[in-house]
């Protein structure tokens, strides 16, 4: 695909760093630039793909497709903007393209009536126990957090992971997923409510609540 002997080119596929003749300036060609930008993001992209697909084969499939798409479209990327957000946007699209139902649900705004479950949960003694000693739950229940995250509907999981695991701002998530910011907030709210519910269930089922009740 690439010929290292070629002069500096204008496409991302040119390989290596090239010294401009007659100057001391070292120009990073697009391929090297792409690789340099990708390097710090690759593990986070992998984690996101894995959590969304929950199957290593599909996750690798999605991730490679996303990275190759980013590579092919690298000339569209504006240097100076967030490469991380740009690649997550592409990866999210690959994941959503494989599941149109998730895309539809993602675009659907959740009304406040459907958020009442949160208030009910607030009263749950079980969740209070989890909050008081979350590491204790980890010791008592195998992998409770990953299991709880896995139990989220894909569209809520996507928003939750972008916020909690990857640290994107609400506005960035809205841009990545191409949905209004209010929808991001409602999905995130709901995702957290579900997580609380699941963790509370784990705590009740494992007897963790009883052992922490004064």
């Amino acid at each position, binding site marked *: 695909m690439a010929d290292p002997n070629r002069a500096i080119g204008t496409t991302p596929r040119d*390989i290596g760093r090239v010294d401009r003749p007659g100057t001391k300036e070292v120009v990073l060609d697009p391929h090297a630039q792409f690789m340099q930008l990708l390097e710090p993001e690759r593990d986070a992209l*992998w*984690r996101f793909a*894995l959590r969304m697909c929950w199957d290593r*084969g599909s996750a690798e499939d999605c991730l490679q497709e996303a990275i*190759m798409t980013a590579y092919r479209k690298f000339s569209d990327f504006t240097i100076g903007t967030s490469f991380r957000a740009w690649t997550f946007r592409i990866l999210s699209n690959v994941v959503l393209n494989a599941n149109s139902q998730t895309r539809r649900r993602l675009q659907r705004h959740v009304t406040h009536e459907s958020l009442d479950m949160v208030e009910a949960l607030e009263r749950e003694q079980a969740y209070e126990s989890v*909050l008081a000693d979350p590491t204790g739950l980890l010791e008592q229940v195998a992998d409770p*957090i990953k299991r709880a995250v896995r139990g989220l509907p894909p569209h809520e999981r996507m928003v939750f992971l972008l916020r909690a695991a990857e640290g994107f701002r*609400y506005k960035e998530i809205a841009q990545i997923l191409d949905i209004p910011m209010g929808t991001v907030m409602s999905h995130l709210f709901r995702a957290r409510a579900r*997580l609380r519910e699941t963790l509370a269930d784990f705590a009740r089922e494992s007897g963790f609540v009883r052992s922490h009740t004064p």
Partner: protein
Amino acid sequence: MKCPQIRNLLMAYLDSELDARDTAEVASHLEACEPCRQRYENEQRLERLLVTELERDEGMPPSVWRGLEVSFGVRPAVPVWRWAAAAAAVLILTAGTFFFLGGDRAELLRQIGAAHADVVAGRVETQVSLPKPKPVEAFLRKRGFDDVHVPQLGMADGHEVELLGAREERFLGMLAVNLMFRCCDQLVSVFVLPAAAAASLPHRLGAEPGSVASVLHEGFLVETVGRSDTVLAVVTEDTAGHPTFLSSRF
């Protein structure tokens, strides 16, 4: 604001997503209200734990990176090698998982067929001086294929197997390794390909871990064997003596 309103804002406060006025109001409330502050600290602790737990997994698997490097053309070109043999079967094995290469399936099969024809015609030779599983696995590892297990020699599933050697190959610009076996008087080429090749194979290799799927395509029998992190595609011209023992060992 009173406690219930503050609690409704706690997570947005935790996310640093409140405007300046609400942020100041929540901060001031938390300073004065012990139960709300305790609640906030607990939520903060749980959120941190969530992130720590979710980040505990390993990074991107080497197979993904290898596939990308091959597609980007970073891996070096491979010289042509010669080896004398005659064979009736060809196996294709893919290490890693699928990847969209956009390559031409028919062209991949043509190149594999031509490579095997070279083996049959004695136009290639091995690059491994000691045809034993461990040296061959080391040969593979040096080329980036570190998750391929080469089966022990001898009887396997009723087939007598002899490992003859290995050599580098190149298909559609991808680095590959040909493992050569003799099985029941047939010579077999096992092509270890980067995951990038899988999408170009004639059968979409969707075998679940532990399952086997077969399909006939252009005179080849394609068998896929899945496990959690590796998918194998086996192609043979000889459906009667197909050496499925290989796939069952991976």
